[in-house]
């Protein structure tokens, strides 16, 4: 007997006490927890996102569509970056004002190549206000998972309010499990030394989030 059959056999014998009419999945779990906490308006939700991002030491910026290229150029220059990784589908206008070497996200580039790059700019799939989390799903404007990991400086652009959800349950409704997802809440951190939180271990040590709203929105 192979181990698969052995283990499944053990499981079935172990569960001899479970009756045949044990409640099925959809009746077994009460979901009377909340879909979101609080009843915030659109602008308040975006405000909460900004607050929670900052609480976990992300640097938060807000601007309109028109102001975005200048803001991104300013952030890159203030960080002293000489090069930036660009996902294949990033809107070209975003970096139109930046005087900086652009590095394409290519399959053949190695982790060592990425380690030489100063910054990365991406969009995101969505952001969660209650937890201060941005979620990347590998879309063309976000690129492969490694490009937001190896460079030490990540700038992530969130379209508000349409990419913002309030809560974790609302995020799961909108995300596709078939895609590889990366949830990011603040920069890399550790609490392994005397449970003191220290930012910046292996992931990017600086996370800047730009909340960009269409012209005419607050």
């Amino acid at each position: 007997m192979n181990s698969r059959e052995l283990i499944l056999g053990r499981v079935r014998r172990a569960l001899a006490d479970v009756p045949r009419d044990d409640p099925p999945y959809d009746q077994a779990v009460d979901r009377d927890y909340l879909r979101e906490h609080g009843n915030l308006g659109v602008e308040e939700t975006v405000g909460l996102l900004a607050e929670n991002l900052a609480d976990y030491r992300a640097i938060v910026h807000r601007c309109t569509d028109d102001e975005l290229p200048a803001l991104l150029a300013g952030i890159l220059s203030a960080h002293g970056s000489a090069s930036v990784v660009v996902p294949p589908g990033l809107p070209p206008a975003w970096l139109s004002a930046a005087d900086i070497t652009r590095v394409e996200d290519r399959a053949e580039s190695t982790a060592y190549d990425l380690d030489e790059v100063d910054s990365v700019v991406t969009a995101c799939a969505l952001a969660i206000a209650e937890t201060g989390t941005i979620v990347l799903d590998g879309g063309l404007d976000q690129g492969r998972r490694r490009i937001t990991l190896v460079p030490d400086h990540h700038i992530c652009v969130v379209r508000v309010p349409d990419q913002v959800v309030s809560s974790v349950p609302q995020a799961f409704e909108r995300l596709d499990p078939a895609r590889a997802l990366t949830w990011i809440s603040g920069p890399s951190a550790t609490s392994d030394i005397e449970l003191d939180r220290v930012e910046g271990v292996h992931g990017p040590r600086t996370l800047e989030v730009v909340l960009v709203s269409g012209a005419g929105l607050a």
Partner: protein
Amino acid sequence: MSGTYLGMPAFPKAAHEAVGNQTLRANLRHATHTIRGKRAKAVAEVSDWAELREAGKRIKDHTLRHLDRYLVQLEESVTAAGGVVHWAADADEANRIVIDLVRMTGESEVVKVKSMATQEIGLNEALEAEGIHAYETDLAELIVQLGKDRPSHILVPAIHRNRGEIRDIFRREMSEWGRPAPEGLTDTPAELAEAARLHLREKFLRAKVGVSGANFMVAETGTLVVVESEGNGRMCLTLPETLISVVGIEKIVPTWQDLEVFLQTLPRSSTAERMNPYTSTWTGTTDGDGPQTFHLVLIDNGRTDTLADEVGRQALRCIRCSACLNVCPVYERAGGHAYGSVYPGPIGAILSPQLRGTESEIDASLPYASSLCGACYEVCPVAIDIPEVLVHLRERVVQGGPATREGTKVVLKPAKGHAAERAAMRAARWAFSHPGALRTGQRLASRTRRFHPRTLPGPGRAWSDTRDLPAVPAEPFRDWWQRTHGGKDTTK
């Protein structure tokens, strides 16, 4: 479980030694009290905590009660997404599978994400014996590995070390494993973290094989989830060409939606954060992004035996948040090493004796490593009634009785060393069912109370070494009742 812990003294002896270590007690007290306060605050932020906890409990219970079905479903969905599923009945088989998979890549080193399952099976030691170097990349695991030490906490394995000790370990050991510690390294946490970053980065960048565990596996989609803070997890999960995930069969949830519960309760319970810095999910392989070969090794290693125990089964709901350790008065004083297992604290006290059986001295002693105060149950995000299982396991140790070992039903003999306890219980049962004898005995005890020794003679001595014997009243309660109320209940 891991050979690392063979020859561990039983809990009382190990705890006795640990309690005498002032540095350890101070480190632990500081750490557990810090996190305890923060956790309470993080939980209070969420108004529906009780409902989330109940949902988490029910999801896990339902999954365990139909585990065969969900395992088969998971296998199908992982395979459909491009992964390869392997099954391992015990630690040796799991290690053998991983060794063969690493060999097939032609590599002789792997980078590892912190994982309880691989510690449980002693994977690092098994790989080392075959000439394959396994590098732990979580900061705390690195401290433990460099210090040739053992983990003492589920979430923060180096919790027993303070910053000065960590600096000394880095200075002394880093050069043995790769990039040495920077000159003039001080003991500030930021500098220590930076030293670890530099030391590990060279390993991440060249790694071809990553080994991980998983916090959750979703049966309907085949998705695996790793929750972490530092980014070392993301490094190991996305930079190598081959990823091998070793996961206990109890880590399944049925649906994608179920994750919405646990990604709210796990971070708040473990690190007291609204959300941990990084969560990675992957479903098989993704073309051009991350490892192109993915293996999932499902391990039993005592889990089906635990599942067979209707009371103890609930221990398999555990999501390894470690909240129970941080509130436990016994853990706080004894430290994690005293539990003789990769699973310390209250959850370890019920998990280890079930995964490994209660035959060894350390495992027979673990159900007693508790004051039964119930704080662990209060904080558990999946409502495991740890005190209930502890009492159940104590009964098994003392009385023996039916249990399942390696899939076979066995009848355990009472453990050695509990003969006096059993004799006392038998005597008590007899006395309580013979009221005349009980009355006479109580009166006799009262009259001779001034002559009673402060410690017990014979086999009871060990017990009375650490406890005061209760004072015997001047008059038995029944006599007092008879005298003052004439045996009549005056409230009627």
